[in-house]
């Protein structure tokens, strides 16, 4: 292995434009290169990136990479506060995620208090109290040299941990100032990203509710139209017969005919009521599908991009992966969107903040038919094997108790199955390894 030492800098000169680059606008010259100017450029670069980001996880990654490059460390982690008392690990580099989670949990309470009214970065060795010993031990394992608060306008949001700068055993005061400045910018941007994500998620839910109401309204109109016509006729006949029976001029023979007619009409009504009940039961299956040929790769890219900020705002990381080439499929984009919404909402309900939701798509043949498989995998506690067969039935929830953690009527997965099947597809579920569930939707090729 031959590692070359970095040679002494040459006198400043204008770089020669390369042949392949002649048509491009020239890159801005980098003439200032001391610590101060490097920090300034880093801060500008970070700000530019953060203000174009509306995704909490993306913002966290940008912040950590930037800080690591600013101070020259190979280790960093970022935790955010959540509704829970435990912090949520959003991203880490250079250390095991499990170790980073344990470290965050160990120091969280102590540092939350310490950083509440402000505060500057501190070393793990400065943490006192009961948490001090475990924090110091875990920080040594993770080789974390300091913690710094992440705030937005004095409101604590989270915590950043950084390793030792390469080749050094401490941070210079100027480096700490740069870190604080970067965190101030990042705190505001991440709060903005989180609020944007929550707003998008609420908007999406509102839109889905509106679509569901429109569906219900359409079904109600069809139902009433049906009932109105069918029910009025026998009712009118029965009423007419009963009115005649009360008339003293009607003969005994006519009375018999009237009773017979009223009875027949009533029997018609009984049959009608039975049909109405049948119609009511099957009304949920009255799904209008407008399937057409679609580029699944484009559809999924747009869909994952649209959902990511909302999922991220709930502190789950939506990771999308796709095979390079996918064959065209036959789908109703609106309906497939509803199906995926149900599956991702379900994954959010049954997983904890700080976990990932993996959205994967690939070509897949099933039963000899070409198509594509879209899977949604969570890292939650999973569903017992014996409950899987009932999972796509209406009004089914894993935890039937009144105190169950996840809300909803338990019709989401049943709706997802109906919609998928209406598109000519199939839906299935299996337990993930090592944890969580994998819901897979198969749709036919065009």
């Amino acid at each position, binding site marked *: 292995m031959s590692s070359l030492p*970095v040679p002494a800098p040459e006198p400043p000169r204008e770089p020669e434009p*390369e042949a392949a680059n002649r048509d491009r606008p020239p890159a801005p010259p980098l003439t200032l290169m001391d610590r101060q100017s490097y920090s300034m*450029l880093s801060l500008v*670069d970070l700000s530019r990136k953060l203000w174009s980001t509306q995704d909490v996880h993306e913002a966290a990654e940008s912040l950590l990479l930037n800080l690591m490059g600013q101070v020259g460390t190979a280790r960093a982690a970022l935790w955010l506060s959540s509704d829970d008392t435990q912090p949520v690990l959003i991203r880490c580099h250079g250390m095991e995620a499990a170790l980073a989670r344990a470290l965050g949990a160990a120091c969280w309470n102590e540092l939350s208090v310490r950083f509440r009214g402000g505060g500057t970065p501190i070393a793990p060795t400065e943490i006192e109290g009961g948490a001090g010993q475990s924090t110091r031990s875990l920080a040594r394992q993770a080789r974390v040299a300091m913690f710094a608060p992440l705030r937005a306008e004095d409101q604590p949001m989270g915590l950043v941990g950084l390793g030792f700068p390469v080749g050094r055993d401490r941070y210079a005061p100027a480096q700490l100032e740069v870190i604080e400045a970067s965190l101030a910018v990042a705190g505001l941007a991440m709060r903005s990203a989180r609020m944007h994500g929550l707003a998008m998620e609420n908007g999406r839910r509102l839109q889905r509710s509106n679509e569901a109401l429109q569906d219900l309204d359409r079904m109600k109109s069809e139902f009433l139209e049906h009932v109105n016509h069918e029910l009025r006729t026998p009712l009118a006949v029965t009423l007419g017969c009963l009115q005649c029976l009360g008339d003293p001029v009607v003969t005994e023979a006519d009375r018999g005919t009237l009773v017979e007619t009223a009875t027949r009409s009533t029997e018609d009504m009984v049959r009608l009521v039975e049909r109405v009940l049948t119609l009511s039961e099957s009304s949920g299956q009255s799904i209008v599908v407008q399937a057409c040929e679609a580029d699944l790769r484009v559809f999924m890219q747009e869909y994952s991009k649209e959902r990511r900020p909302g999922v991220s705002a709930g502190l789950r990381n939506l990771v999308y992966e796709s095979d390079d080439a996918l064959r065209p499929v036959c789908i109703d984009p609106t309906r497939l969107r509803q199906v995926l919404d149900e599956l991702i909402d379900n994954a959010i309900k049954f997983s904890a903040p700080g976990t990932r939701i993996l959205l994967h798509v690939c070509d897949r043949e099933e039963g000899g038919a070409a198509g594509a498989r879209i899977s949604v995998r969570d890292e939650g506690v999973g569903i017992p094997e014996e409950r899987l067969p009932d999972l796509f039935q209406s009004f089914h929830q894993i935890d039937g108790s009144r105190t169950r953690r996840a809300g909803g009527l338990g019709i989401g997965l049943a709706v997802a199955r109906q919609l998928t099947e209406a598109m000519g597809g199939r839906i299935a579920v299996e337990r993930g390894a090592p944890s969580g569930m994998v819901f897979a939707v198969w749709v036919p090729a065009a």
Partner: protein
Amino acid sequence: MTTTTDFEIVDAGRRGRTAVLRLRGRLDAGTAPTLLERCAQVQAQGQNLVLNLEAISFLGSSGIGAMLVLVEQFQEQAGVVRFAALSEPARAVVELLDLGQYLTIHATEEEALAAIDAQAP
């Protein structure tokens, strides 16, 4: 080839178990995630990696951060990443932060490949 507005990653093939990627343009906060994503694909195939930085016009702190992440990530999987032929802007930043030894920098792509070959069991 992976391309964004200001950044390109050119696949320069592989030698044995080592893939070579040539970077061109600005490696900054906007483009560093693209580099990490592409390198993760290389790592997923169980390959070592040589990154050629000859045509890097700007190396920001996020780019340096990404390079530090790559060193750790490849080490975790018993792989190797080497950096070769640093452009003047890239070299200036690496020198400023005194990261030359940690990042294992080589004068040319060939030297980096030879060093990985020599290290292989």
